[in-house]
């Protein structure tokens, strides 16, 4: 419930604030740019043992929606964006005993980012700045046969260094390269064992994340633009510490979350309207 309230606040901030992100490449100076669009994300996540051996791999394509706002004020550019993906991906992994196991994982990925960029040259071809973000990944590994399901909710904030380089700029078209290096804050996972054990929250190790994207923007009218933005993101988290596990309040063993690495490809298609 607390996570939902936090998410609602962040969503509100995203939609109501005078900010925008994907609209960074658009926009009349001083105008408020709102954008909305669709996206597909190729999700690829791997869970690794301490030895580096791959334990689990989840892959699949998730449809999503993106929306946000942005505004350029002088040589500053503020922006924010909310993205939400949901669907099922293929789980190829194993049971706790090490037996090969495959199933589907229902996956919901919600991200919100806000950033401010300083335009370093009058034309705005090069900009650097800082950002903050928040990510929630709901991972529901489906049970099958005698193997029970397992639900995990990953939460993490982050701070990031941002840079944007315009590689093509004309009256009608712009192509930028966006770079982002993020450091997670308080990554954690809440694990629901489906009643087999008591729900447990583990603090995860931090792992730097990075994203590169190439938004291309075309003018479609005096105050509107179409943006297509392919991107690649590397993210993850470190192994949690080993913590006690309880069953109905009685100690029943120990649990830890292994390290995880994700490599996502996504393409966003958004419509930007300036006001």
């Amino acid at each position, binding site marked *: 419930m607390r996570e939902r309230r936090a998410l609602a606040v962040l969503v509100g901030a995203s939609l109501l604030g005078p900010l925008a992100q994907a609209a960074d490449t658009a926009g009349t100076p001083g105008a408020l740019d709102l954008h909305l669009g669709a996206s597909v994300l190729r999700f690829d996540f791997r*869970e690794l043992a301490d030895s580096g051996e791959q*334990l*689990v791999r989840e892959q699949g394509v998730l449809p999503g929606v993106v929306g946000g706002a942005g505004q350029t004020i002088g040589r500053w550019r503020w922006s924010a964006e909310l993205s939400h993906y949901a669907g099922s991906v293929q*789980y190829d*992994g*194993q*049971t*706790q*005993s*090490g*037996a*090969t*196991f495959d*199933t589907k994982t229902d996956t919901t990925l919600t991200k919100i980012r806000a950033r401010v960029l300083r335009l370093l040259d009058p034309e705005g071809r090069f900009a650097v700045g800082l950002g903050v973000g928040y990510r929630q990944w709901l*991972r529901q*590994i489906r*049970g*099958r*046969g*005698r*193997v*029970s*399901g*397992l639900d*995990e909710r990953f939460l993490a904030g982050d701070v990031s260094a941002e840079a944007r380089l315009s590689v093509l700029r004309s009256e009608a078209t712009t192509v930028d390269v966006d770079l982002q290096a993020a450091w997670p804050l308080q990554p954690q*996972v809440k*694990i629901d*064992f489906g009643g*087999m*054990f008591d729900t*447990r929250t*583990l603090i995860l190790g931090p792992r730097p994340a990075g994203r590169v994207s190439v938004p291309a923007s075309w003018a479609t009218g005096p105050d509107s633009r179409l943006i297509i933005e392919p991107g690649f993101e590397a993210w993850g988290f470190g192994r949690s510490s*080993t913590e006690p*596990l309880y*069953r*109905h309040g*009685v*100690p*029943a*063993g*120990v*649990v*830890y*979350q*292994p390290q995880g690495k994700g490599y996502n490809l996504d393409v966003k298609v958004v419509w930007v309207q300036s006001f």
Partner: protein
Amino acid sequence: MRKINPWMALVVGSALALAGCGGDGDDGDSSDVPLTAITADNAAGVSAVVYQAASALFDVASSSGTLPLGAVVQSAPGSAGGLGLASFAARQIKAATRRPPAAGTGVVAAVYEETFQCAGGGSVTERLNDADDNGVESVGDGLRLTFVNCVEEGVTSNGVLGFNLTLVSEASTGAKVTFDNLALNDGTDTIEADGGFNLTVTENTGVSELYEIAGETLASTLNGDRHTITGFTGSAASDFAAATVTYRFTGRVSDSSNNISVDAETVTPFVAQTADDFPGSGTLRSIGAGNSQALLEALSLTLVLISVDPEGDGSFSAPVEWSWSELEALAD
């Protein structure tokens, strides 16, 4: 965790009669039940009881509690607990032989004893009677594990589990296993056991594992129901790469509460995927009075065929199709 069906008790209790020292063993021993005549009416019920007895021997069905990774739960490796005595004994003997040897406590240093804390609370006291006084577990040694509210893999254990080691090698461990007022509780059911059987565990770490069991009598008490198998052998081979378990059983199955007693054998072994509820292949024959027979053939993960030869003349009826879940319900 999956509700333990009454036939799980077959795995558990052995052997008041086998050991001859765990009690008089005569209080309603279901091995006294005469062989049952198998008819078209009871063939499915008999087959259901025998199948469950066979599959429960090695706790094949105990992976109902298995979780996928995700998070790594170190308290629930392997079969994630379970009350099958063969798998419980196998887990314990592997754990005991892998612990570092305790300091000698006897005058002649032939008896070693140490108490370990269990992962989920409670303790287990290991006492090694080092017959050859070589300081490690070896053939001829006796191991005695005394559980006091020991919680491991979701199972709370009390009582005594003993091993007389008959085989110790890098790959295999064998022992005559005895239970002395051993009580296992998984939070839903409690099984109490006395008696024992011979067990051999052969392990290729991370690749395969083989349990082999043989005994004269194995009885169990579960929620007041008492069951017995006699003259039995069995094996369960786990292939971790293929995620399969292949298991066999031969022996007499008696259920005094349902007044059933038949001889049984797996004509072709059952093969089950680790993640599935039921085997996808395998054939089990039950033989009752007058050589009457029932044949259970696994068709798929969901369907099974039951045919019957009530006259014992080798002429079987046309097979009747059942779902595994329907068949399982017959034995409850």
